[in-house]
């Protein structure tokens, strides 16, 4: 049914000197010093190019970018509601496809990209994104995950790391840890749950260099509905000095607490194989004020879950299924 050519040839950006120089998301946004999510915005539109329409769900990358009736966007951009990361992309893609097919606007490849934060994408908007990933439109949904409702001054979401301090999960006299939920495994969930979605990936804006840019490029070239989950260190909510945003991201990947992979036509590839030589997760945690209240047993617990994810999961980092395929004997069903 698609009438626009879904596939542009995928050419990997082989080295940093091949990255497009022009900015399409430009200086003059009200993001925090050292904001990694801003780097995500900058990066995805750099590789997507000017023939792109973008929607942004409510959250930091809405409020901090298009702040107070200004905009840093050079490409067409529109706000969408917190839970509309998926539906806004479908709406734009459907509108453009209809208008092109009916000859109301010239036929061309226009990228449709929608971004949402973790509370928008992983909590409230999950059902809309799931439905978008079932569609046959060319669209890319980017979930920028700074592990909190950062815009309302850091409240815990379904994506906040276990144990982290947020304004909704303050350590107290009775409870040291109020954030007792384990981080949701969104990319894995979406990859496993949508057989016709051809490309799902996780990413970190700046580590390893170019990885995120190439994943965006690849998603757009594979075509159909695609999804990228980027893990964005947040100096405001994670409480580290802005100059270390790259280092915190690198530590998240190298400690294995955030798995870095892509699922392309069912093939899982790891961009960092944390099954071997993982940096102790303590190195990641102890560099952030949000974990200052943790004690050794908390850190050991987090380390245990991370080790389990890499050593016991059937598909490490992707699907928490253990022990492989077992055929139940009749009797065992009633055991």
């Amino acid at each position, binding site marked *: 049914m698609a009438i626009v050519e879904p596939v542009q040839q995928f050419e990997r950006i082989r080295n940093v000197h091949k990255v497009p120089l022009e900015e399409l998301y430009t200086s003059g946004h009200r993001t925090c010093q050292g904001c990694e999510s801003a780097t995500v915005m900058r990066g995805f539109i750099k590789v997507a190019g000017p023939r792109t329409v973008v929607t942004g769900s409510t959250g930091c990358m809405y409020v901090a970018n298009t702040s*107070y009736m200004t905009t840093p966007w050079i490409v067409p951009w529109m706000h969408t509601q917190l839970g509309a990361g998926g539906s806004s992309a479908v709406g734009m893609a459907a509108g453009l496809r209809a208008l092109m097919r009916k000859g109301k606007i010239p036929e061309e490849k226009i990228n449709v990209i929608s971004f949402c934060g973790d509370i928008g994408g992983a909590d409230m908007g999950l059902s809309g994104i799931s439905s978008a990933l079932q569609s046959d439109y060319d669209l890319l949904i980017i979930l920028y995950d700074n592990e909190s409702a950062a815009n309302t001054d850091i409240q815990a979401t379904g994506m906040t790391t276990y144990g982290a301090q947020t304004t909704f999960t303050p350590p107290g006299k009775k409870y040291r840890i109020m954030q007792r939920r384990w981080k949701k495994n969104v990319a894995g969930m979406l990859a496993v749950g949508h057989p016709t979605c051809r490309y799902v990936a996780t990413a970190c804006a700046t580590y390893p260099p170019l990885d995120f840019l190439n994943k965006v490029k690849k998603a757009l070239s594979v075509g159909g509905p695609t999804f990228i989950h980027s893990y964005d260190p947040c100096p405001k909510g994670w409480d580290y000095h802005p100059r270390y945003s790259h280092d915190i991201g690198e530590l998240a990947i190298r400690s294995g607490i955030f798995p870095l992979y892509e699922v392309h036509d069912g093939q899982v590839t790891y961009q960092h194989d944390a099954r071997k030589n993982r940096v102790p997760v303590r190195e990641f945690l102890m560099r952030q004020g949000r974990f200052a209240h943790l004690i050794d047993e908390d850190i050991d617990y987090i380390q245990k879950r991370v080790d389990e994810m890499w050593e016991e999961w059937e598909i490490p980092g992707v699907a928490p299924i253990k022990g492989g395929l077992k055929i139940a004997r009749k009797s065992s069903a009633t055991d």
Partner: protein
Amino acid sequence: MIKRVEVNYRGIFQKSLGKKIGSDIAIIATHMGQVGFSNGRYSDSPERNGIPCKYFAYVSPDLSEEELEAECGANLDIDTCDFSIVLDDTMVKGVEPWGWHGIRPINEKVTENGYLLVVSRKSHDELLRFIGKKPYPYHLAILEGDASLAGLWVYKDDLTHERVLGALAGLDPSLISMEAIEAHLLEKTHEQHRVDAAREAYETIRQHTRVVTPEEGIDWPYAPPVLPKWFDFPEGIVVPAVERGFTMGPRGQSRNTTFKRGTTKTQRPVVRFDLCTKCTLCWLECPDECFDPTPDGLYDVNYEYCVGCGKCAEVCPVQECIVMVDELRFEDNSSPWEAYKRDPAAYLEWAEEKKGTERVNYPFVTGTGVAVTAGQRVPEGKVIPVKKEVYR
């Protein structure tokens, strides 16, 4: 009579500090039998790291609470203030909290004979090199100290809070008195050293206060805000995108003109172009698109938009190539690359002079202090790689 106090602070870094000061002024004044309340400037929220914000405290010896609230409560910002506290001296270069307002002078709201109280290690004259002229005299008081920067969760308890209260009492005991401060601090914390810190500031602040005459300061270069009438802009909540434009070299990239936010920085990156290996990392990792690629493969810095996060300095693989330097050592935002091209030797000399002998770096968790190390002067062109391993 109303006494208005504004606390200028760095978003997030000084959120708790600014609020503590504002609320304590209201509480202490109330204990003294006056009427007082405090609030933050709502439009600063959501706060972003480094962006200038304000917290207010209002005190009156004679008005009713309702009248005071009516006079000071429901405002986007206040029109005048008797005391303007500046918790980070780099804000004297002006503040741009949000779009369309341009860069506003730090003393914009200070009334005639009012007080501008700055936490700084600079002298009056050094600060006045950046502060706009006022048509009337006012006081500039300097509370010696470094900007107290912390994060949301780990508070930096370096007594700045107590010292600012003491200094205010020193400037105007009728606003809050030293006795009332002492009683309040002891009641709250039972810690004498907090009272001592406040008293030290109380006793010395006058020696560091002087009148600023209408002749002193600079002619403010930025125009005041003008917002369009309802029929002067398109319906449907639409703003034109930033016009597309890119050419090689300084200012070659088009940027948002209604919000520049350069006043967010406390430090700026100084670049030794002679050491640059053209690895592109400073440009590639900049979250604010502030590096302009140049024809010779180097990267110019646009200081109008740079927010001074320091990420470029952190990811640069060459020692002393990019160093973060105190923003108050710089008068203008002109292109460093152009200066380097004009006269390389003179530029390198200038850069080293600006960098000085100390390197001020922050640890991972901001509130845990500042690391000051000795800088080294690397000979021209001598590239020494940074031995960097995040996990040691």
